[in-house]
């Protein structure tokens, strides 16, 4: 007899109240204000007068039982047993007594976990799966983040940027790492290399043709077998054909490069949300520490820190000083590739005499 399968319980997203800090439950929807007593610590005051201090801790995002127990032991010993993860994988521990804050911080620091990521700091880099687990990655994610956070550690644990800095990484041009003040994304520079003997068996050809953003792919018979061919003059090397058709190998040890984009912002504060813009490309995918990426990112951060005013995000700052000044201050080359030619691109051109000298 066939094994009886267990029916799934389609419970969906769990109710958070069963795990929430009791002071959160008690004051749900009734908070008065907050401040930040020091980098890495938030202090929220409820209308009832209740107070909560949150200690924010940077992690590797990928945690095993050792890390989970190490962190949870600290929380159980010095905290209240409740934690929260931010969208950028920071680990937050809440306590209702101010006296518990310093011992908590000390315990995390003694265990090698940085406390910070609040306010105008460089918070944890949001990252994707990369070589560890993705099926289409042009680079690693955890490694890039680890290498960069080593370099930016001092900016994580302090609050000395003009405003918060969100850095993101993505291992392909789909950019699942998302928009960022600074985004470090794979940029392919050569068309896919097609393994024609596999295409017919592995790929649903019409879907692959439909996937191309610039209609550069067409069905073809190659060596007597149904396959696909790429018009390499049209191809923008985006890699969109690779996920539905792995024989269209887009990743390359040499020609898969990294590009850096700046000025993306999710928040509606001051200006409307914005997309990040290209500033640098052609950067080698230089594992294991990507020093060329780190150098450019640190330079941009340095210039931003020096030149931006309080509360200006990277995009706000460039809106004020203009792109020519950005390229002047960062000493990054401005090329023909910075000029948009995608749909709607005319709106990105300067149709005015607004020019800074």
């Amino acid at each position, binding site marked *: 007899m066939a094994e009886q399968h267990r029916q799934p319980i389609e419970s969906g997203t769990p109710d958070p109240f069963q*795990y929430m800090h009791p002071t959160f439950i008690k004051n749900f929807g009734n908070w008065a204000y907050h*401040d930040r007593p020091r980098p890495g610590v938030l202090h929220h005051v409820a209308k009832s007068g209740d107070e909560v201090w949150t200690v924010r801790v940077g992690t590797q995002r990928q945690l095993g039982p050792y890390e989970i127990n190490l962190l949870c032991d600290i929380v159980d010993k010095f905290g209240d047993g409740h934690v929260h993860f931010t969208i950028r994988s920071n680990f937050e521990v809440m306590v209702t007594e101010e006296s518990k804050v310093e011992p908590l911080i000390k315990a995390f620091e003694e265990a090698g976990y940085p406390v910070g990521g609040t306010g105008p700091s460089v918070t944890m880099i949001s990252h994707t799966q990369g070589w560890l687990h993705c099926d289409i990655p042009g680079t690693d994610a955890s*490694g890039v983040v*680890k290498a960069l956070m080593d370099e930016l550690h001092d900016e994580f644990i302090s609050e000395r940027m003009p405003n918060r800095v969100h850095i993101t990484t993505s291992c392909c041009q789909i950019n699942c790492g998302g928009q960022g003040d600074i985004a470090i994304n794979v940029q392919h520079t050569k068309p896919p290399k097609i393994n024609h003997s596999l295409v017919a068996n592995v790929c649903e050809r019409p879907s692959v043709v439909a996937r191309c953003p610039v209609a550069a792919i067409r069905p073809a018979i190659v060596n007597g077998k149904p396959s696909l061919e790429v018009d390499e003059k049209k191809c923008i090397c985006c890699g969109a054909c690779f996920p539905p058709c792995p024989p269209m190998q887009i990743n390359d040890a040499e020609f898969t490069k990294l590009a850096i984009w700046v000025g993306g912002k999710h928040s509606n504060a001051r200006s409307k949300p914005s997309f990040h813009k290209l500033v640098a490309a052609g950067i080698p995918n230089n594992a294991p520490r990507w020093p060329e990426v780190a150098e450019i990112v640190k330079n941009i951060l340095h210039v931003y820190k020096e030149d931006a005013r309080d509360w200006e995000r990277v995009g706000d700052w460039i809106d004020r000083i203009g792109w020519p000044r950005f390229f002047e201050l960062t000493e990054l080359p401005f090329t023909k590739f910075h000029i948009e030619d995608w749909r709607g691109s005319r709106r990105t051109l300067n149709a005015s005499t607004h020019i800074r000298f």
Partner: protein
Amino acid sequence: MPKDPKLHATYLPPMEEKESSKPFHPTPNLDELETGPWPSFVTGLKRLAMQKDYGNMMVDLLGQLEHSYKTRLGYWKGGTVSVFGYGGGIIPRFTELMDSTGKPMFPECKEFHTLRVQPPAGNHYTTDMLRQLSNSWSKYGSGLIAFHGQTGNIMFIGTTTENTQHFFDEINDYGWDLGGAGPCVRTGMSCIGAARCEQSCANEQKIHRLLVNNFQDDMHRPALPYKFKFKVSGCPNDCQNSIHRSDFAVIGTWRDDMKVDQAEVKKFVEAKGRKYVVDNVISRCPTNALSLNDDDTLDVDNRNCVRCMHCINVMTKALSPGDDHGVTILIGGKRTLKIGDTMGTVIVPFMKLESDEDYEKLVEMAEETIDFFAENALEHERTGEMIERIGLVNFLEGIGVDVDPHMINHPREISYVRMDDWDIEAEKWNQRKAEAAG
């Protein structure tokens, strides 16, 4: 030097304590990521590779990852793995790295699947629950968990096809369910919101669970044209990146006057100085809706406040959102593939969420949207791309929403459009206005 090296991110037990049988592969590239002040995922992977169960899997995982670092190429391919009764929620990974005889170079990790699991709304956990999830995963998988992936899932990384079912059965029994993968409604995200934040204008966790849990069938059995994401932020700071990153963004807002505690304003001006307040608050208002009075109190032109949150972010004690809360809904945000990035477009400028009927209206709106998406989007097309292709007006007619000037930055600039129904359309607007006036 750490106070107790055994209780430190850099700790690796001595080799004689290694319980896995397979020796480590040399990993000179990865080893370089074990230095530096940030906690190292490589050290974490090595600790997992020393475990008795699944240690060999992680030894080989490290081997394959090192190989990727050397060749700068990835070596995983997808496939089809699912648990009984569901069609999605697992990211199957099979190694593609074969030796000259066609056998896996790193056979112990030849199957290395991830289970995507929906976190509690707002990402709250107890340490007990984290340990329980960790224990279950160590029983059936590598022990490696990512908190959280970019779609918001808890990702349990690294197990065999067979164990996906066992692990799911165990955690599903104590309240955890798989998330979305493939062309389906995806795992939702919501900010900490009302639980801790004074800027929250909505019950984020309720909206999140109501919406996402209404579509569990569409999550677990992928049958949509492409993915569909819900994200909920409690205020326009949009911590959940919902405008950029979700098909259906629900963002808390308010429509009465923002609250000003003038005594606190005066204290703030006294503490920071007038110049600071003018430079960092007054002049940063995007619609010039703020003015500092001679007596150091604040004037707010509330009719022209666009709820951007900046002044409230700076003066957290003196300023806060109003009391008449609701949400703005934007539809159509997505990342680059295929037409380029799109942000969500305002579809509902304000929706009150108080009564059960209000919440039902929200769910109905999501149902209309997903139904229309399912019927009209092309294969692999997101809502934002569909709207771009068919035009916003066709989408609005499809889901039964009237046009509204809040949906646009500015009206049409090009005269090339046929407008012989102008009078009828103008009359619709007049009628709606008359109805609204009662």
